[in-house]
Structure formats: structure tokens, C-alpha cells
């Protein structure tokens, strides 16, 4: 179970990574969002039995972690935490797909195992890319980038508000659930009845808070329109960043680099 306080800490950690100041951090967020999209699309476009060809894609997270000065261990841990979930869905593959695809000496590897591994690698890559995007861009900047790329403003504003108040409400939620835990000995009190009124209470307080925020907005001249700073600049650096990575991803998608490299190094070719 995710502890609610743990989640909050995690959130703050990721959020503060985005305040870093590196060449990557300084890029226009649109460039970073677009590159991440191209990355994810190329990765997921691989076939189900593809494994080796996906490996070169690790270059992208590795380079960004390097350039963006991100804590590699933390990001690796975050990605690793998710792998069990990918495994749960992937583990059926070896059960249902027993065709032997590769014979490694005495070891017969079935298609199921290959596609299972492929799912895990895929998950690690896509999840890693998303987390890295967050860490070098920050959620609010991503929202603004998406807005500039055509996301409706109402939704962008919704995301920003949500993000802002997640910090407040998870704290509040943490407090009420701690209070409940302290007063429910064993499992009594953790049941549905208490849960209903606990959430009801939290909901009411949330509602009142929304009313107060609305007041504060009106007090400062809010009329339904949101004006934000327009400070982005999609310049030459961004263009190079976007085109460079995209070209690399597409090349890697079309050419199985590890196989070429392996053939080169071991001298074995077909």
C-alpha cells in the first residue's frame, strides 16, 4: 500500500528536481515534451518479440540523467518499483506462449519469455522517460507546454489547480487517516462506515476550501480568464534537440543496433 505521506514526499522530491538549472532544464518545455512523445511512440511501436533492438533506447534516459544532473539511483528505484506491475501482466505470456524461439545451447527460450521480457523493458523505458521529463521540466511547465501545443486552456488550468492542491489535500488526507488509525484499535474503525463519513468530512472541507479560493480569486479581479506569462522561446537549440533525438530514435527503430554491434565485435554474422 502506498503510504499517503510517502506519496507526498515523493511528490515534493520530484517537484524540486525540476527547479534544477542545467542546459536541459533551460530548454523550452515544448521541446522536451515532444521528444518524450517521439521516444515513447517509437518504443511502443516495436513488435512483441522485440527485445534487443529496444536496448539502445536506454541511451536517452542515461544522457538526460547525465546532462540534467538527476539522481540516477532515485530514478532507477522509481522505475524499478513499477516493474513488478509490468511483470504481473507480462507473466501470463510464458504460460500461454510456449513456442521455442531461441535456442541458447541447452536453454530453450520460448516466445512467451521473450515477450514477457520485452514488456518489462518497454515499461521501464516509457516509465523512465515520463519520470525524467517531469524531473527536468516540472509539472506546471509541462502543462503550459501542452497548452501551447493545443491543449484546451480549461484543461490546462484544471491540471494546474489540481497539482497545486494535491499538496494541500494529501496532507489533509494524511492527517485524517492518521487520526482514524490512532483511534481504531485493530481493524475496528477502519471499516466502511467510518470511511464514508471520513471521506464525507474531507469532501465538505474541500468544498469549503474551493469556495474560499474562489473568493480569493474574485478579490483579485478574476473574471473567468486566465492570463499567464508567455516566456517560452522555441529557438535553435530546441530545434536541434528535437530533431536530433527524433532522428536517433527513428534510426534505432529501423536498425537493430545491438545486432550490428554484436556482429562487429564477435565477428559472427549470418
Amino acid at each position, binding site marked *: 500500500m502506498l503510504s499517503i505521506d510517502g506519496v507526498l514526499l515523493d511528490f515534493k522530491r520530484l517537484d*524540486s528536481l525540476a527547479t534544477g538549472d542545467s542546459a536541459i532544464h533551460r530548454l523550452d518545455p515544448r521541446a522536451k515534451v515532444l521528444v518524450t512523445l517521439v521516444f515513447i511512440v517509437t518504443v511502443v511501436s516495436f513488435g512483441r518479440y522485440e527485445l534487443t533492438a529496444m536496448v539502445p533506447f536506454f541511451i536517452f534516459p542515461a544522457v538526460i540523467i547525465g546532462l540534467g544532473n538527476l539522481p540516477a539511483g532515485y530514478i532507477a528505484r522509481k522505475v524499478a518499483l513499477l516493474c513488478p506491475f509490468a511483470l504481473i501482466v507480462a507473466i501470463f505470456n510464458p504460460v500461454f506462449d510456449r513456442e521455442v524461439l531461441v535456442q541458447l545451447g541447452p536453454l530453450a527460450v520460448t516466445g512467451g519469455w521473450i515477450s514477457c521480457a520485452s514488456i518489462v523493458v518497454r515499461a521501464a523505458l516509457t516509465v523512465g522517460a515520463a519520470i525524467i521529463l517531469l524531473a527536468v521540466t516540472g509539472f506546471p511547465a509541462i502543462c503550459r507546454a501542452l497548452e501551447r501545443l493545443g491543449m484546451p486552456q480549461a484543461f490546462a488550468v484544471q491540471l494546474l489547480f489540481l497539482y497545486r492542491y494535491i499538496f494541500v489535500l494529501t496532507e489533509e488526507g494524511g492527517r485524517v487517516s492518521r487520526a482514524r488509525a490512532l483511534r481504531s484499535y485493530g481493524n475496528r474503525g477502519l471499516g466502511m462506515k467510518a470511511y464514508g463519513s471520513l471521506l464525507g468530512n474531507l469532501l465538505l472541507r474541500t468544498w469549503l476550501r474551493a469556495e474560499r479560493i474562489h473568493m480569493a480569486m474574485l478579490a483579485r*479581479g478574476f473574471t473567468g480568464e486566465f492570463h499567464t506569462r508567455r516566456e517560452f522561446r522555441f529557438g535553435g537549440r530546441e530545434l536541434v534537440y528535437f530533431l536530433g533525438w527524433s532522428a536517433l530514435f527513428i534510426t534505432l527503430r529501423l536498425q537493430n543496433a545491438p545486432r550490428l554491434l554484436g556482429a562487429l565485435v564477435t565477428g559472427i554474422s549470418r
Partner: protein
Amino acid sequence: MSHHIVEVKNLRHVYPDGTPALRDISFRITHGESVAIIGANGAGKSTLLLHLNGYLAPTSGEIRIGDFPMSKATLPDIRRTVGMVFQDPDDQLFMPTVYDDVAFGPMNLGMPGPDVEARVRDALQRVGAGHLQEKAPYHLSGGEKKRVAIATVLSMSPDILVMDEPTNGLDPFARRQLMGLLKDFHHTKIFTSHDLDMVLELCERTIILNEGAVKADGPTREIFRDEALLAGCRLEKPLSMQGCPVCGK
């Protein structure tokens, strides 16, 4: 300047559920005055403040801010004149960064970009929060939040500053810092507070509300000397005016 005058006449407010929160309130606050509104929980302080910038409409009675009587047409002007700082800064700071929050008001007023920037910088400087500009509100401490919340209002250049329980929840240092800050403002100031020591220091005039009615209105020191009055309104003399518990003086 008649600009900075707040006049409330026979104000009554009944909430939709039938709670009579304010009964027949009248007072007049003139330019440059610093006034505390005190009273027990539920006395109607917050309700009163919410009338001053037109968020709540009087059930009956009249409010004038500066030259304008409160009405739908004057509401935008009144909201620019009265800067309202809410009790919980988390309600006031809703934008992704401190800068965006402080710029929210000026941008809504339709100011051009460079002006907005100057205003933001100035407002943050005045509350000593210039270095927090790019921070997210959830990364601020309680005292910082409060100061930034005040900046969000200052950036609109209000003539009258209204604050609901400004020192509530602050540690002694942050409280002291905030009081120093407020002392330096030459706006008309209206506070509600349970922090009577702060009231004693900052406000020359005090209005006591009790169950939705004005119970007393006068110089702060005089009011705080009247123990019977205070006790009758579920209040207590500020510590600095009580005898020393050790030496009894």
C-alpha cells in the same frame, strides 16, 4: 483622500441557512487608521470582512468604500481598492509559482507585461520575499506563505488592507517579522485577530464584535483595560497588560 474611508451602516447579514451572523453593525474608518476587529469564535468577524470587498452582499444595510457605495457596478473598483488577505494562505496562493500568484491580480487588471513585472518585483520586495519568486507555494514555510499572500494583494496597489487573522499559526519569529512588516504600511488597515498583543502593538483602535453586534468601539488601550467588557465577550486582556506571574507586579 476620501478614497481610504470605510463606512458601514446598519449592516445585517443572515446566511442562507438562517444563521444571523451580523446584526446591525455600524462604524466608520478613516484614512490611514489601523483598526482591529476582535471577538470570540463565531462572533462574525470573517463574515464582516467578506462584506468589505463585496463577496457577501448585506441582507440589509449599506457599505461605502471611499467614494463608492457598494453595488454591482462598483464592485471591480472596490475590489481593487480593498486588498483582502485571507486567513489560510493556501487559499490565497493558488498559482504554480510565487511570481504567477503575485502577478495574478495585476494581469486581471489588464496591465501590460512590463508593468506587471515591476509591480510583482516591488510587492515581493516590500514583504522581503524577492528571492522566493520562482518557488512553488507548497515549498514555502508558514511565514513565507503569509508574506507572499500579502504581496499578492499589494501588487494591486490597494488603498485599504484587510486581513483575517494575520498572525494565526505563525511561529514567534515569523509573527514578529510580519508585525514589523505591517507596521510599515501606511494603508488604512483592518485586521481581525485573536492575538491581542499584536492588536495592542499595531492598532490604535479596536472594535469588539459579540454575537454579530458591535459591543465596543474605541482606543485599543482603553478597551483592553475594561476587564468586565472583555470577559463578557469571551476575551482576555493581552498578556503584556497582565501582571507579571512571577513578581506579581
